[in-house]
């Protein structure tokens, strides 16, 4: 490995010596690629963009209960920090499992985890590893519910990326899993969730469960 490293750097330096001058770093605003029409930062705009990106927006826990009932699902994974608050509001017919047992992967019909932030420009949910109770709970079930405090919004993709902390894994989710590999026909739910939901949780009522 050390030999390969030395060899690659030696070759690179030799090749780069051929250059009379090296291209300087071009100066540009970090949000240069944000389209003018997609600027702005409001919850309403974010909800609109979420829907455009195939994410369902749910404004209350009772509305989430209605959605789950409508889909006929009763058992799913839930972040253990969120579970106490949600289980009361969702009612006894919905079972929330606070751990993800890999041997029961198909039993989790939905997964509820926290989102760290949202990006208004693209209707994107930001899930940081340290805020996600279990990656599997966010990717394996057919329905993924990301709970987001609507105050945690970035206006642009550039802002979100440049303000990331040192979290080892951040995933930006814009809608459900999808593919157009077979004849270009769009099908949702390939490996990840076939339904992506954003639940706005007003954390002022219960700061303990602030996502």
């Amino acid at each position, binding site marked *: 490995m050390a*030999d390969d490293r030395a060899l690659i750097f030696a070759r690179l330096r030799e090749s780069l010596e*051929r250059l009379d001058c090296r*291209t300087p770093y071009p100066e540009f605003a970090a949000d240069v690629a944000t389209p003018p029409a997609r600027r702005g930062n409001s919850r309403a705009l974010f909800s609109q963009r979420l829907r455009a990106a195939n994410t369902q927006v749910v404004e209350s826990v009772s509305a989430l209960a209605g959605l789950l009932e409508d889909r006929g699902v009763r058992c799913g994974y839930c972040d253990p920090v969120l579970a106490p608050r949600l289980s009361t509001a969702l009612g006894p017919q919905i079972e929330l499992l606070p751990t993800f047992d890999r041997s029961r992967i198909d039993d989790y019909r939905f997964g509820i985890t926290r989102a760290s932030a949202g990006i208004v420009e693209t209707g994107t949910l930001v899930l940081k590893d340290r805020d996600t109770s*279990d990656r*599997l709970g966010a990717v394996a079930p057919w329905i993924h519910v990301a709970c987001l405090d609507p105050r945690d919004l970035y206006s642009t993709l550039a802002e979100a990326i440049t303000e*990331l902390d040192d979290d080892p894994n951040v995933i930006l989710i814009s809608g459900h899993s999808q593919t157009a590999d077979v*004849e270009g026909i769009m099908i949702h739910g390939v490996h990840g969730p076939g339904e992506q939901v954003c639940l706005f949780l007003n954390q002022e009522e219960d700061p303990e469960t602030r996502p």
Partner: protein
Amino acid sequence: MNRQALDAYAQGLDDAVLEAIDVGARSGVDKRLETLTEDYDDPDALRRLAGLLRQHTLDHLDGYLSQVEKRLIENGARVHFAATTDRALEIVLDIVRASGTRVVTKSKSMASEELDLARRLASEGFEPLETDLGEFVVQLDDDHPSHIVKPIIHKTRRDVARSFERNGLGDYNDDPETITRRARAFMRRKFLEARVTITGANFISAQSGRVALVTNEGNARFGLAGADVHIVLAGIEKVIPGDRDLALLLSLLIRSATGQRMTSYVELVAGPRSPTQPSGPREMHVILMDANRSSIVGGDMAPILRCIRCGACMNSCPVYRQSSGHAYRGVYPGPMGAVLGPLLADGGQDQLADLARASTLCGACGDVCPVDIPIPDLIARLRARSVKNQLTEAGHGVPPMGIYSFLARHPRLWRLVMRLGWIIDWIPLRRFPVPTARAWFDSRTLPRWRGGRFRRWFRRTERQRSRG
């Protein structure tokens, strides 16, 4: 050989395959254009900016590569350098063996295609699983991807249904939704069974060490939730200076590749999972592979290394659309493949030298490139290089251009030919005495002769202008 290799390959393709490729590629062109023009007043300005950014990175690659290595190690990842594809394969095999796994999940990675990684892992007794749906079908069929974004652009739903049936994934059913559900059901347990998952990298930030992975299916995410070990295999040119550059490059990559504003998933992986996270890799290995790239930087072909693998150049290429990616006989098809393929191949410049001739030089590939690579210029340079180096392979099937060359260098003769050119309308070109030209005219016709009109118009206009 009377035909160029690429032309001969295209001649043998079924009409259904050609139609699938043409429709698939054209839809990419339309979606890209629609999103870019809707979003930006001047998308070309962004392309030029991104081109400068990528060129800057390549011109300082030694420094950025050193920076990314340092940062990844600080993040807890292990960094490996591989001078060749063989060396990269050895490193992958060592890591996979040490993990004790049999099943290995893999996301789409063009760098891994350079190693023929899935086949090599299988030949060593492992069970590699391509998890991108298109790549999975390619693997089932022991085929190769024919497009860098749409690997099965050359297959119809009937082909896929037959492939699933043959491989025990259900009775024949060509409904794309059924096909997708079957793939989902098959792979879910494999994601959990595999202790190792392999991905490529769309970009690696030298500032933070973040590896950006762009997908729509969620396969990379599932792999990174199920496995204990993550191997990133990336060409050294994938490095970018910092996180602030990601927003620009992701915006252009995604719009150019699929016409979306964002893909469903963009994962930014800086290191092994956080201590509080119960799922995901505890080990992260990043293999930075050279495989002839270091000989390209600093030279006149260096701009090809700006490529961010969006596939827009092949979607817009009239030659690709009528020949498929397999006609390019390498990992990278289309216009970017015609340049990069010969440059990366070990001693393959001679064997693939004909690819530079497989272009009309219409310029469409250069016009759509999100990082402003002057692909037609690079193709022309490769042609010149093949002439200079007397690579006879480059000229196979190409009609001799000696007469044209002579006329083009003698203006008086050229003018005379312009006047007499109408004769060509009366020559039966399919019986032309030059075999390569005859082969060319087998499937092509010329429009009626209109030569000389521009010269006459120009002369007239100049005369009128001088009269005042």
